[in-house]
């Protein structure tokens, strides 16, 4: 005879918190959470006690005190009486400037080198391999200080440009002066300028917006809008009649005529650098520190990008090329329509992390005296005010925001080109 027993009652015992897999994860998480909070509390408590002893209770009032130091390479107007906050803002803009410039040049050089490394030409491929290995295996800081040393030591001083028979001459039809104090390039000037709009009054975040630039951008935008309309019409005609009307001249005209008229009306001309006294005047002055950092970061990152591009192209199977040829595509179209879209999917994610690395490496500007955010907020401001905790936290926050925004934009782009799987 058999007796049917009831299933065991689902009673809860304390030991089940550890031995029952249903509850164990919760136990582990609770322990981890408590441990983390205890650790954080310990850190904060220590910090508070220590700062109290040092008489440096955290506060951000120092940001509104006058900075008292100069920033020589700057994008907005600034003088040493401005606040630490404005100094940091200028530093941030300098970081972004060198990061954007670096990313663009690194991409161009990197793609070129990556493609050339796959060249059938033996010697070209070998030269590119040497370039890549050389730059990848030596610290970027060394490249930065080396670039700075080359610029300072090997370029002619401004006084070499003086006299009847100068030792050095300006390049590119006397428009660019390459000296050991930096590079002077022509600047755009408007003789009938519409002036500037001053925004945000006298505050630390004030900035000027050039009306000329706004007008130019508006006209350019309208031109591009017109061009898209013309092209859409051409496509429509092509789809209905099978013949595509010629759009080249209309497009060129739409692009150049309105902007040309506007520039002529504004009295656009270039201001060339000129040797006056001991130094060059006029033109835009790019200091050595900026150039050295830009060059070194671009060349260093380009070596990594080259490897990524090479890997991406190699990852597209040869069958794709052959299939495209079988369809009768020419090699240019094969590259543009078949190989590149597939290679890009492999290339983009590591490319994003290299852009991020470049941006973070731009903090090494401090080694050559370029006033980026590490040099202003994390350098002179920190040393002058003695507010280490606040400045380092703000510095980290700035870089975090930059990094996360780049990641977000790039991830959005990555999702757009991603293979749609069914």
């Amino acid at each position, binding site marked *: 005879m058999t007796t049917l027993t009831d299933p065991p009652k689902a009673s809860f015992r304390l030991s089940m918190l550890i031995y029952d897999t249903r509850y164990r*994860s919760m136990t582990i998480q609770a322990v981890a959470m408590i441990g983390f909070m205890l650790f954080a509390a310990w850190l904060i408590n220590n910090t508070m006690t220590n700062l109290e002893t040092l008489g440096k209770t955290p506060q951000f009032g120092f940001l509104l005190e006058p900075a008292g130091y100069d920033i020589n390479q700057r994008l907005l107007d600034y003088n040493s009486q401005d606040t630490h906050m404005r100094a940091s803002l200028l530093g941030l803009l300098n970081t972004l400037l060198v990061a954007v410039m670096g990313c663009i040049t690194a991409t161009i050089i990197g793609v070129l080198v990556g493609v050339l490394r796959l060249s059938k030409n033996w*010697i070209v491929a070998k030269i590119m391999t040497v370039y890549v290995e050389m730059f990848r*295996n*030596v610290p970027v800081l060394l490249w930065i*200080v080396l670039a700075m040393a080359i610029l300072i030591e090997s370029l002619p001083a401004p006084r070499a440009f003086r006299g009847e028979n100068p030792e050095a001459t300006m390049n590119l039809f006397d428009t660019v002066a390459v000296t050991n104090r930096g590079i002077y390039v022509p600047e755009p000037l408007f003789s009938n300028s519409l002036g500037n709009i001053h925004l945000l009054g006298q505050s630390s975040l004030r900035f000027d917006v050039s009306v000329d630039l706004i007008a130019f951008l508006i006209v350019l935008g309208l031109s591009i809008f017109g061009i898209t309309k013309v092209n859409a019409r051409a496509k429509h005609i092509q789809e209905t009649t099978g013949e595509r009307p010629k759009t080249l001249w209309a497009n060129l005209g739409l692009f150049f005529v309105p902007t040309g008229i506007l520039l002529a009306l504004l009295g656009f001309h270039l201001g060339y650098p000129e040797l006056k006294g001991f130094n060059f005047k006029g033109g835009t002055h790019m200091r050595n520190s900026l150039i050295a950092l830009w060059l070194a970061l671009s060349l260093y990152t380009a070596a990594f990008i080259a490897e990524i591009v090479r890997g991406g192209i190699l990852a597209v199977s040869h069958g794709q090329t052959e299939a495209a040829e079988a369809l009768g595509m020419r090699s240019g179209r094969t590259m543009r329509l078949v190989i590149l879209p597939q290679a890009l999917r492999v290339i983009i994610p590591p490319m994003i992390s290299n852009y991020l690395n470049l941006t973070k490496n731009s903090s090494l500007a401090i080694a050559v005296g370029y006033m980026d955010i590490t040099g202003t907020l994390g350098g002179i401001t920190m040393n002058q005010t003695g507010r280490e905790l606040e400045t380092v936290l703000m510095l980290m926050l700035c*870089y975090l925001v930059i990094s996360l925004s780049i990641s977000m934009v790039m991830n959005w782009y990555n999702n757009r080109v991603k293979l749609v799987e069914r």
Partner: protein
Amino acid sequence: MSDVSFVRTEMLPQQEPPGSSVGIVGWARANLFDGVTNSVLTIISLILVYFVLEGLLSWTFQSVWNASSLTECREIMTATWGKTHGHACWAVINDRWLQLLYGFYPPYPAEPGVNFGENTGAWPAYFRPNLSFVLLLLAVAPVLFDKVPRKLLIVTAVYPFLMPWLMWGGSIWGPVMAAAGFGIGFLAYRLLTPVIGGLGGIIAAIALPVIWWLFLVGIVAAGLESVVSISIPEVESRKFGGFMLSILIGVVAIGCSLPIGIVLALGRQSDLMIVKTLCVGFIEFIRGVPLITLLFVASVLLNVFLPPGTQFDIILRVLIMVTLFASAYMAEVVRGGLAALPKGQYEGADSLGLNYWQAQRLIIMPQALKISIPGIVSTFIGVFKDTTLVSIIGLLDPLGLSNAIRADAAWNGIYWELFAFIAFLFFVFCFGMSRYSMYLERKLHKGH
């Protein structure tokens, strides 16, 4: 009718290929002069290579090796070649190479009353860092190459405790007692598990060593030192420098970051929400900020975070921050490897009845780590290169030393030779590591 056949009845002998398609000529036609564009590219490249090599080789080899200052160097150059441009002055390396390798590490850590020949001191020159380096090679050999005898793993186990003692000096009891902590943990697990059960054993095996390290090590080591004194002269951290410092920071960061990185990667991949959030937060925070800000933390802030009165050695602080930095990157690399494993591997492990740690140890990790070898090695290379950043917070790594050497009146104004030497040494190390990773990839590739 004649029997003239118009069909060839015997085979022709095989002909040699045309002379232009074999040998050097054929190779050059195929690889260098294949079409107009390629020919132009080849010629431009050859001209470029010629000019670069001509300048570089004459600079490197027509050089001065013996001089005591840059001025003297230039005098010799003018006397020999009639110009100072285009010739290297390797005399600076000759003069300062010990400093570039060891920083200000004392060649004879002094101990009064001990005499070694004409040099007063307890040890022959640079004996301790050299021995540490040789032991390092012995310690990593069994990990890197499987043909090396397994017994060398003992060196690997002892090395983490031996190396700090050799480098910093002092009493041997500190490192020995620190190592004893692991013994205590093991004994606690073995002896207490039968008494208080498996979980209690694990908790005891973690808690007892922590108590030992936090509160008892100092007292016991001091006691033992007063009974049996075994010590070597101490060397302060600020005397460390040169490649010795770079290698020290690199090796410690690389060695510690791999296990921490694996744990972080597992945490990020796990289903436990809070653990996952903590790991993601840590990884993304560290990866979002540049190393230089973390080094600022090490140099000015870390002492503020610790209990009042704690005085931490600067190199130790830098080591901690660089390790944390490397761990976050390592975690992402390992996570890539984990994510690349097919789901079937996890399910297979589950169906065999393995628990989480068994599955990780026996099935998941060996495969995931194998996939991520290239990434791991490039992280290693990156960390080693990033050790140069410590020059910004004032440590004397090779780059910092190059500034110090230039500050000397004798060598004021010398750039290229120092940079070339430093770059060459870094290149040798990093290139060696990348070649090793290729070797390992080939070896581990099972061809499926």
